[in-house]
């Protein structure tokens, strides 16, 4: 136990130690004090000793020391934060050395000793020992690497690939913007196009031309090319398949095709026949659908939706989730209720087709082989004309709508 006097003495000695450090290090120390003025915590970022040539600093870390009441008789706690270019092995070893040093110096000032020790460690491994976060491979002594002002390390080759891919992406965005907006009327705020650090998203300035000259990294690690399909793998896959089947039985698996086809339109026949199909309005996109709403020959057949109460024009490509445009208003037909003889037009399925199939050829296709997907043809065979005008069959009642999506 310490009495008040001893406290004051130890407080005084740690204050003096920090003052001395400030003088030695020629730098400001980040120290947190208690309300009574006792130093609680010290933070200091350390670099390798490279004769103050900051261009030679490839690694760094921040030392955080906490001083318990009674320091220096009580050892301080040492933490190593924000390591840059340093692997886990380095950190574990450095921390171990620090703690040993703290024990050795119990009763004497130790901060400077710790700082010196860490600088020595950093100097000895003044090249990145972790892995490049882009290719996940370690830095080979012959590899050409680079690092950002935020001290994140990459193989020059990997960073140049990243920057090039960013440029390609920007170009695509620009082209798209130009296509959407041919007159160049750009009221949208232009996105600032700057390279950012892949790890921390700090803006970085990259000399791409010189980075691109760097050779690809050495593949230092040798491992099996094929991952091992061992017993564990087989067991996992089996378990997953069983779980999938269980969920499928319970109706828990999203039926992509059904969701895709949920938004179907049945058109009432007018004068259209297979031969005069050019007059049949074709619905290829959501916009077409909205236009078609005003045309008398299109009838939207109302059918209860089993799962969803609200129409959503789904896109066949689920990767396009960024397009959350508001769905047009419409009523539902379930794809399962439309048998192959009905004339159906999918509102969305041709969205991604660059070349919609020629109507005549799709008719031939339809006539020559059974139609599996309703949207393959938007041409109605003559014998099916009456079907679409009839009221739709009653919805399958056995499908229980989940809560929240009950038909309103």
């Amino acid at each position, binding site marked *: 136990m310490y009495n008040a006097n001893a406290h004051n003495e130890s407080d005084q000695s740690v204050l003096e130690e920090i003052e001395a450090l400030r003088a030695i290090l020629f730098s400001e120390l980040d120290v947190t004090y208690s309300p009574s003025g006792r130093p609680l915590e010290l933070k200091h970022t350390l670099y390798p000793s490279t004769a103050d040539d900051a261009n030679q600093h490839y690694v760094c870390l921040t030392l955080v020391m906490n001083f318990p009441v009674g320091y220096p008789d009580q050892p301080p706690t040492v933490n190593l934060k924000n390591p840059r270019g340093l692997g886990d092995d380095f950190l574990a070893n450095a921390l171990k050395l620090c703690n040993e040093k703290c024990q050795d110096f119990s009763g004497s000032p130790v901060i400077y000793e710790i700082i010196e020790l860490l600088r020595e460690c950093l100097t000895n491994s003044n090249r990145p020992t972790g892995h490049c976060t882009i290719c996940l491979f370690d830095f080979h002594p012959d590899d050409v690497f680079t690092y950002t002002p935020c001290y994140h390390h990459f193989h020059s080759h990997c960073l140049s690939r990243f920057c090039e891919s960013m440029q390609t992406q920007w170009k695509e965005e620009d082209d798209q913007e130009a296509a959407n907006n041919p007159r160049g009327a750009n009221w949208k705020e232009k996105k600032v196009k700057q390279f*950012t650090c892949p790890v921390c998203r700090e803006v970085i300035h990259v000399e791409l031309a010189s980075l691109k000259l760097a050779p690809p990294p050495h593949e230092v690690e040798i491992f099996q090319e094929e*991952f091992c399909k061992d017993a564990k793998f087989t067991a996992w896959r089996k378990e997953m398949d069983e*779980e999938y089947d269980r*969920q499928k039985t319970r109706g828990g698996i*999203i039926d992509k095709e059904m969701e895709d086809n949920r938004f179907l339109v049945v058109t009432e026949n007018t004068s259209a026949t297979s031969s005069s199909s050019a007059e049949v309005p074709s619905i290829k996109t959501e916009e077409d659908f909205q236009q078609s709403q005003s045309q008398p020959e299109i009838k939207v057949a109302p059918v209860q939706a089993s799962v*969803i109460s609200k129409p959503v024009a789904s896109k066949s490509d*689920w990767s396009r*989730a960024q397009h959350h445009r508001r769905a047009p208003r419409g009523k539902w037909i379930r794809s399962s209720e439309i048998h192959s003889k009905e004339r159906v037009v999918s509102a969305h399925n041709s969205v991604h087709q660059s070349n919609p199939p020629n109507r005549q050829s799709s008719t031939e296709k339809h006539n020559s082989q059974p139609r599996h997907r309703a949207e393959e043809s938007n041409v109605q065979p003559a014998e099916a004309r009456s079907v679409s005008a009839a009221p739709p069959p009653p919805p399958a009642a056995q499908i229980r709508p989940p809560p*929240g999506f009950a038909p309103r």
Partner: protein
Amino acid sequence: MAGLPRRIIKETQRLMAEPVPGISAVPDEQNARYFHVVVAGPEGSPFEGGVFKLELFLPEEYPMSAPKVRFMTKIYHPNIDKLGRICLDILKDKWSPALQIRTVLLSIQALLSAPNPDDPLANDVAELWKVNEVEAIRNAREWTRTYAMGNI
């Protein structure tokens, strides 16, 4: 598989050797870029106890472009739509090659713990989530119980 970047092999090996708690991701036997994924509903969330199947695909440009991920199990969540598509910035414009399959799946697991109805993908779910959170959470629990619990 010929032409498979070594980074993908390395990630696959680590996913198998040191799986993330509550997440398993196993490559397909035929296609090493396609992963079968199972994410356990996080504790304390309305998805707790659920086992959610996802599919993950690494496009040709990976890791320069984001993996494509989709829920296969039905889920009641404001940022996941009927097709299982996920509204998550790191899968879109915030993708970075420093992210990996495991970090993406961790983010998805975190999204289950922290739904964000202000950035919705499923509008009706998000609306209810904002207007009546209690009911929305009850629905999410109900969906989890109905669809995502295999062993009941």
